[in-house]
């Protein structure tokens, strides 16, 4: 990213004090989010809310790269989709515990992220975007051919199983609490990482990469670690989604999925802490509503991209934060 041009909204300002590294405003927002997670399943369909939560985790993972490193990945579907496949496989074929199966999905995403990230971080800016897109396309073609994915049918009738050997997940409410726990764990993990010394180095790289290099930081290693973490959480989101719906298909690895997560984050606010969550709620609701109108989903998504880029670059949370002069 060139230094002279306006960059996406800067990453949330570092909070030296506050509650668990949250600023006061962020702490309030976090409590509101917790309350919503507890109350909403009694008002809205848990299935819908679970999609929102996993969309949000996926977007938070993606946001780690764009918001804190300025790296725009157009290939995150690869980690999400492969995580979904391997999580499904672990549950259905290896009969693992649901929690363990989801970790298998996360590990799959992380390992794939290690390989693809190692290649992609050799370039930055728009080349990084094109390389991640192309690599994800390769993963997609692999999934079309590979026998274990079940081709067009996907892996179906995945049992939800039991989490931690104690909690059966058959009911939607049980699954919902499990999903909410996974989301919160992922969300707080990202928050913890960003506010660690490691996160400060990421910000330094984003602000001025040459200077970070001259200060002796192994910038490529930092980028790769962030990439792997992002891919790991994407894999977790993919695997959890396959457990929720009992199915893992090519739909998870297709390049549209990579576009979705970019849109979700852009709508919510690139580089904001809560933007990906708000973005996921908005885009999931929109997709739900528009699903009956066929291609209008894509058209609307495209139009939102255009409007956001031209007139609403800070996204919903970024805009609110700027109005209130807060960091959210």
């Amino acid at each position: 990213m060139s230094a002279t041009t306006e960059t996406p909204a800067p990453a949330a300002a570092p909070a030296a004090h506050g509650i668990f590294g949250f600023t006061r405003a962020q702490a309030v927002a976090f409590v509101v989010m917790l309350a919503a997670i507890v109350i909403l399943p009694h008002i809205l369909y848990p299935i819908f809310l679970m999609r929102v939560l996993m969309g949000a985790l996926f977007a938070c993972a993606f946001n780690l790269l764009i918001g804190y490193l300025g790296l725009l990945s157009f290939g995150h579907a690869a980690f999400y989709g492969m995580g979904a496949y391997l999580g499904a496989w672990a549950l259905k074929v290896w009969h693992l515990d649901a929690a363990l199966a989801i970790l298998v999905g996360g590990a799959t995403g992380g390992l794939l992220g290690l390989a693809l990230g190692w290649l992609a971080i050799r370039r930055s800016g728009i080349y990084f975007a094109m390389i991640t897109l192309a690599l994800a396309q390769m993963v997609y073609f692999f999934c079309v051919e590979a026998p274990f994915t079940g081709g067009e049918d996907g892996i179906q009738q995945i049992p939800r199983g039991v989490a931690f050997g104690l909690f059966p997940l058959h009911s939607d409410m049980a699954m919902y609490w499990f999903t909410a726990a996974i989301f919160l764990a992922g969300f707080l993990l990202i928050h913890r990482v960003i506010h660690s010394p490691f996160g400060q180095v990421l910000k330094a790289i984003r602000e001025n990469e040459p200077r970070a290099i001259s200060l002796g930081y192994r910038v490529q290693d930092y980028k790769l670690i962030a990439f792997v973490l992002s891919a790991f959480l994407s894999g977790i989101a993919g695997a959890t989604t396959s457990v929720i719906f009992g199915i893992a298909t090519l739909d998870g690895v297709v390049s549209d999925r990579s576009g979705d997560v970019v849109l979700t984050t852009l709508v919510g606010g690139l580089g904001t802490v809560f933007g990906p969550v708000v973005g996921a709620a908005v885009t999931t609701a929109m997709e739900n509503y528009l699903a009956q109108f066929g291609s209008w989903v894509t058209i609307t998504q495209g139009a939102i991209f255009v409007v956001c880029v031209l007139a609403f670059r800070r996204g919903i949370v970024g805009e609110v934060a700027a109005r209130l002069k807060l960091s959210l």
Partner: protein
Amino acid sequence: MMILGIPAPLLFGQLLLGVINGAFYAMLALGLSIIFGMLNIINFAHGALFMMGAFAAWLMLHYLGIGYFPALILGPLVIGAFGIVLEKVLISRLYKLDHLYGLLLTFGLALVIEGLFRNEYGSSGLPYNIPRALSGVTDLGFMYLPVYRAWVVAAALVVCLTTWAIIEKTPLGARLRAGTENPALVRAFGINVPRMITITYGAGVALAAFAGVLAAPIYSVNPDMGDNFINTVFAIVVIGGMGSIMGSIVTGFALGVIEGLTKVFYPQGSATVIFLVMVIVLLFLPRGLFGKAA
């Protein structure tokens, strides 16, 4: 006749398919390179505009009775003009921002365009016949060559080389090259660089539309035809690097041929071979084969 244990007609047939795909890769990669040079954005709408070229040919034939050859000129002109409008109204607002916004904007435009066409014409594809003058097959002795396919390769070569010559060998091209290097100084010489940028985008789009018209009789005209190409073309652009016009053309054709040969010798790998080449190039030459130092 067998070559390396492969029947010659099969080998040459796949090689020809590879060269034809390569012709499309070359035209699309060339357009992306030209646009990138002047605008510093990656035109994610390139595949959608390619598809619009094919639809332009189909629509002209169906509603206006305009045949293939006039469409080959009119299609790029109309779609190129549409590109100019896009640049003027939308893209030009982003030049002072990070280049990633240009990518996101054109990605959104592609979604809108493809969605609208899918709504209107479905995804099944519309037939477009090979024009009579170019139908039929020639016997080359070692293989049968469909005339239209030979025409596609020839037309693509002519258009690519003409574009190369304009950019590398004419005063207009010199202005373009200078504008890529140092737009501010070129403006200070009295050249209207913003207008040059607009026209460059229009020309790159026209090139995509020309490829689209050429593609109409080969692939069925459908809203997703650009999508199928463009991801591969992005990989090709990474392989070639966007610094060189000739580099884009050569890389495009070469990877088409490599893909064709893979179909003969290892069919399972044909969908991924170009991406594998990209991985290898990234490992050893991260800037691409023809890329210049940043």
